[in-house]
């Protein structure tokens, strides 16, 4: 009987040597006449344990990690295939507290199945959401999404059901579904993990969206920095077409939905939905004025749903188990679960999907295990490069959109980047301005010019040139950016800048 062994093909695992470990396992097993069935799964999201090797023994998956190529021969000789003890032995994967304490709805299959096996997907509750959707009319489908309380996971947290309803009720001979897979925020990788680890769930979610609003064409706008996700998505899409889950007359329903992946080209601003549509149309990614809303006049002037990867990937479970099932997780107006991403200077970096409501402190210490360097955590940036820096005094904020907004902070796409006490917050504020200048689309003046002036002002502050006067100037400039920019890039760059200044004035050389 052959033994099933799992080694992740997730690009972060590969970046730590998973491909070489997988090759070594095959080679050394062959030399020992051990028959193994190697599955390249997605990642469980415990990156400090990657490359993680799992072996299935009596129907249970046991883990070893982090495994290096040099460990492989020894692991096999010590009885890896029987799940025997070894210094790298971690026990049952799903009993590891980091994993066990999570509530995985959107990530239910990630790390478990072979990402590009449609059979595996179907065997693990895949396409049950679509099966239910096909028995409903369009209004009922949209109602489930509205009832679930799902809000845009890209960061803006706009209710997904309302967006869908607008597109449903806008008559047009052609409508579009766009998946915003331009996950450009630093500290975020949940979209990538879904696309690499369970691409079918995104395809199913987009198909349901298409049926619900009457769109027959979907595009996944994927950032070019994700080559592994590109391969996985294209492989999964090809299989979905072959099995009639995409194309004409889906599963005999008479409904049509076509799907194509389009690549971005390294422009952060194209994660903004109107800029993204310009890019898909083959133009420079200049931000559009709103209104008109994309739901009324979007891609090629047609009604368009633009949703983030995680939003769309949460749709299958909502249609499978019902809007109420999903809504029962979470707190306040933040319903369901949020896949959080622990990054930067943390001991246990990775993906944590939990219901809204846990505090940032629990996340940083109970899951993250504190800083990787062992020094105190000085600041945490939540919500990407446009998110505020939170000092220790704000760590008890619950992970909830409204609680974060009340602190003048941003939960966004759930990226959490920790810094230890060696971080210089003035340098980070300067970097925020530099980033905004590099990525500004150039359409509105506050962002285009303000970012460059902001960088210069920060430079003067750091070099103690007219420091007091320049602090006043910086605040005034941030006010202009906040209130005068066309989109979130210019409009939110003041979040990291001002939060750094307000919470860590000593790094700017001024008193609080």
């Amino acid at each position, binding site marked *: 009987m052959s033994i099933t062994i799992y080694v992740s093909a997730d*690009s*972060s695992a*590969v*970046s*730590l040597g998973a491909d070489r470990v997988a090759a070594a396992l095959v080679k050394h097993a062959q030399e020992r006449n051990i028959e193994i069935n190697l599955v390249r799964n997605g990642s469980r999201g415990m*990156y400090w344990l*990657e490359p993680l090797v799992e072996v299935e023994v009596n129907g249970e998956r046991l883990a070893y990690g982090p495994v290096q190529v040099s460990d492989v021969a020894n692991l096999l000789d010590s009885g890896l295939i029987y799940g025997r003890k070894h210094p790298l032995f971690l026990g049952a994967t799903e009993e590891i507290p980091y994993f066990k304490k999570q509530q995985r709805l959107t990530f239910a299959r990630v790390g478990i199945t072979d990402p590009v096996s449609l059979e595996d997907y179907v065997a693990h509750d895949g396409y049950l959401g679509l099966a239910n959707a096909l028995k409903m009319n369009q209004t009922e489908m949209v109602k489930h999404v509205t009832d679930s309380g799902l809000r845009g996971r890209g960061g803006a947290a706009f209710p997904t059901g309302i967006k869908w309803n607008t597109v449903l009720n806008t008559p047009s001979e052609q409508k579009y579904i766009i998946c915003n897979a331009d*996950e*450009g*925020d*630093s*500290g*975020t*990788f949940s*979209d*990538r993990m879904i696309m690499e680890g369970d691409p079918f769930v995104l395809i199913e979610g987009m198909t349901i969206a298409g049926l619900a609003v009457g769109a027959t064409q979907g595009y996944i706008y994927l950032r*070019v*920095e*994700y*080559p*592994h996700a590109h391969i996985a998505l294209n492989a999964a899409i090809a299989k979905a077409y072959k099995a009639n889950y995409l194309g004409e007359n889906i599963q005999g329903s008479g409904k049509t939905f076509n799907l194509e992946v*389009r*690549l*971005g*080209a*390294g*422009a*952060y601003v194209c994660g903004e939905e109107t800029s993204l549509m310009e*890019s*898909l*149309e*083959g*133009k*420079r*990614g200049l931000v559009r004025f709103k209104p008109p809303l994309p739901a009324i006049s979007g891609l*090629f002037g047609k009604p368009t749903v633009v949703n983030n990867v995680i939003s769309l990937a949460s749709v299958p479970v909502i249609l499978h188990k019902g809007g109420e099932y999903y809504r029962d997780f979470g707190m306040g107006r933040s319903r369901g679960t949020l896949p959080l*991403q*622990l*990054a*930067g*200077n943390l001991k246990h*970096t*990775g*993906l944590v999907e939990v219901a809204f409501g846990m505090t940032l402190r629990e996340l940083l210490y109970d899951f993250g295990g504190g800083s*990787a360097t062992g020094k105190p955590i000085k600041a945490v*940036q939540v919500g990407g*490069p446009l998110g505020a820096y939170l000092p220790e005094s704000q760590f008890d904020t619950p992970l909830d959109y409204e609680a974060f907004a009340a602190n003048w902070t941003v939960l966004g796409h759930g*990226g959490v*980047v*920790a*810094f*230890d006490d060696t*971080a210089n917050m003035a340098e*980070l504020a300067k*970097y925020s301005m530099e*980033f905004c200048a*590099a*990525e500004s*689309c150039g359409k509105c003046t506050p962002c285009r010019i303000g970012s460059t002036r902001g960088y210069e002002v920060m430079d003067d502050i750091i070099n103690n040139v007219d420091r007091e006067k320049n602090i006043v100037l910086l605040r005034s400039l941030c006010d202009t950016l906040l209130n005068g920019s066309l989109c979130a890039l210019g409009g939110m760059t003041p979040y990291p800048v001002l939060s750094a200044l307000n919470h860590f004035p000593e790094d700017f050389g001024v008193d609080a």
Partner: protein
Amino acid sequence: MTELNAQQQVIDQTIATLKDKPGALLPILHGLQDALGYIPPHSVADIAKALNLSRAEVHGVISFYHYFRDTPPGKHTIHICRAESCQAMGSTQLESHVKSTLGIDYHETTADGQFSLEPVYCLGNCACSPAIQIDKEIYGRVSNESFDAIINELGASA
């Protein structure tokens, strides 16, 4: 001359295959850069004609996106992540090590044509910072020493 002809053939073929897609310009530019490593400036007129755009519009798109380049890259392109998560794990120090090891700055290519250096804002490998990408391969938790080892390996296989 033959090399130029071969290049022109790639350009013509890429345009012909992709020009009828809705929003064809980015797919065409990607097609050219995948095949040739860059977008030759003389292809701009051909693309513009096929898509009924002005050359200025095509040039505007090429220059807007950081990923597109109009000069041939070195044999290997190194992208260093400059974003916050990598900074929290020492990427600025790695950045200066890479620059001084290769003797080049961003957007430059080494004199022997081996390596081009580009900044990137996030590779989505934030759980394994600092991260770099060399060609299509992503590397995590990169130290000065592991960077040197990777470069030596690539140089040896050249």
